[in-house]
């Protein structure tokens, strides 16, 4: 008599734990993002905090695709980089210090996206063959200076490629990224593509919101 009872209690407990596990992710507060309703994004050259000097421009050359497919106008990254160089700003740290006012004056974008690459390549050897990339992003309104969104993503060669998330938009961008990386032999750059996609695809779970050029939800 007591045995099935305690079994039932146990089952209930397991269920509670499982449900709680699903609920731990706090929904992101998008009120500032929605209020700003940006159409264009100026992405600055990422600041590299990994030991690999290639990290910054590897990630920088990947970010246009996910953000554009999310429905934003992304200012041309190589041209933006050239503009900074012609103005004497040669590295990402110096560029990071340019004030939002000055950025708005030249680029007239609605927002600026700051990226940090915190892990790139095989710097942390958990498994000897692992190549991993981690990046964080912060979206700031260039007119008000308000932070609109923050995200972090990691990709690693030691995982299965299937669970990249992001629903249909995720599948789409995965397909596009795979198309690009299949032609490359540079493993770090390849993993950087997956990390960039995870970071910047308009993901329903705490991701960047779809921009004005995105297809209506029903068509996606």
């Amino acid at each position, binding site marked *: 008599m007591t045995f099935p009872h305690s079994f039932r209690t146990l089952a209930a407990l397991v269920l509670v734990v499982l449900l709680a596990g699903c609920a731990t992710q706090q929904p992101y507060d998008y009120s500032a993002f929605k209020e700003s309703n940006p159409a264009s994004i100026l992405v600055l050259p990422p600041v590299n905090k990994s030991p690999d000097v290639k990290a910054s421009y590897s990630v920088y*050359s990947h970010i246009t695709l996910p953000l*554009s497919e999310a429905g934003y106008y992304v200012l041309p990254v*190589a041209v933006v980089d050239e503009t900074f160089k012609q103005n004497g700003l040669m590295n990402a740290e110096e560029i990071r210090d340019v004030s939002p006012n000055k950025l708005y004056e030249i680029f007239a974008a609605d927002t600026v996206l700051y990226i940090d690459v915190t892990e790139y390549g095989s710097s942390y050897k958990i498994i000897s063959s692992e190549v991993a990339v981690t990046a964080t992003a912060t979206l700031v309104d260039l007119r008000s200076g308000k932070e609109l969104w923050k995200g972090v993503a990691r990709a690693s060669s030691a995982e299965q490629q299937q669970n990249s998330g992001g629903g249909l938009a995720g599948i*789409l961008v995965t397909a596009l990224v795979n198309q690009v990386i299949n032609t490359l032999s540079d493993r770090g*750059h390849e993993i950087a593509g997956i990390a960039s996609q995870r970071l910047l695809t308009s993901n329903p779970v705490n991701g960047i919101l779809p921009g004005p050029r995105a297809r209506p939800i029903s068509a996606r």
Partner: protein
Amino acid sequence: MNVTRTALVLLALIAAATLTGCVTPPQPLYYWDGYQQQVYQRFENTSSAEEQIAALEESAQKARAADRTLPPGFHAHLGMLYAEIGKPDQVRQQFETEKAMFPESAQYMDFLMRKFAK
């Protein structure tokens, strides 16, 4: 009776799960082709401006043939490369195209035309 019903529900669930796995992704908004690789090559300096222009012009032709839209920044990037080999007419044309396709770029394109096309 009850067992068959459970089995049917289970089958339906498996079918649904299998089908969701096979959903074909929607068509991308833009025709990417080799644009992202060209941006990377530009940063890595692994090919000349002429080679990069040739690759991008080929992509542009394929996009026209497929009646697809080139991604944001494509024409501006091409304009910058034309500036490097001293072709001011093409520079202006590419920046104007970027501006027409994406009015969000207007102020920056005007800034670039003042700088490059001098």
